[in-house]
């Protein structure tokens, strides 16, 4: 399946792409556009004005994905809180990881192209998932 989002992906779009690959569509192919009108007819848009999988009611697209695909996983919810704070910085959640993750992804987008940012951030989110999963199981941060 094809998925379309805006070019210049940061924390949220990179996290959404990771989520799609890992939990929704392993064969996902991503297309970057600059204007909502450029979304190919066969692609599902996300984080684009007017899309269902976008910013709604004070939530970020990653949260919209969890809701839309019924991904009820406490570890994904923990990632959603971090992504929300990195994306919106509205202080709704206590997510001290957010500013650091935001800086890493913003920096990455300065030195690499859109598709590369997605590829390079995949293991980062895999690792974050594993770390938060262990934290959830242990009831504390893993060493």
């Amino acid at each position: 399946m094809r998925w379309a989002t805006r070019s210049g992906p940061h924390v949220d779009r990179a996290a959404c792409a990771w989520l799609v690959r890992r939990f929704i569509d392993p064969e996902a192919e991503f297309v970057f556009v600059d204007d909502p009108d450029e979304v190919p007819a066969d692609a599902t848009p996300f984080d684009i004005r007017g899309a269902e999988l976008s910013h709604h009611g004070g939530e970020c697209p990653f949260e919209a994905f969890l809701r839309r695909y019924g991904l009820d996983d406490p570890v994904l919810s923990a990632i959603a809180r971090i992504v929300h704070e990195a994306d919106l910085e509205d202080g709704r959640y206590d997510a001290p990881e957010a500013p650091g993750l935001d800086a890493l992804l913003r920096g990455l987008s300065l030195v690499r192209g859109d598709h590369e940012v997605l590829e390079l951030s995949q293991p980062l989110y895999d690792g974050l998932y594993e770390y938060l999963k262990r934290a959830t199981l242990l009831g504390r941060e893993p060493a």
Partner: protein
Amino acid sequence: MSAGEWVLLAYRLPREPSTPRIALWRRLRQLGAAQLLDGLVALPADSRTREQLEWLADEVVEAGGEATVWLSRPGSAGQERALASRMQAAVAADYREVVEEAAVAGSGPAGQRKRTLGRLRRELRRIRRRDYFPPPERERAAGAVEALADSLERAAA
């Protein structure tokens, strides 16, 4: 100063319910947007400010209002300077508050100093996110907060 490009959000929201109005107002304040007129706000244009205003526009529409986002250039340098100095004055006042709070905490007990330090660092980070035309107070506030951190270091030594 900025490259001269600004992103504007023109909006109209129903008076009631008031929740979306308050949420929008709070978000615009966090972003440090300058109110040009009732229902018209501006930010120096970059990829982040543009996307933030686009999301807000979507939310205004969802709340039953109307909103459009524009990229624009001020008609004169003087007009831009006036707007920039107004925005600068607003963050300068926020920084001064941090300086004052750090000074007050500096004379308090260590436990309280430590708590205040954490809070002021977070506050400083929030102010910086809406600081597009850094005033001299930015460095002063950072210095005052670090001085508070140093005083704790010395107390621990």
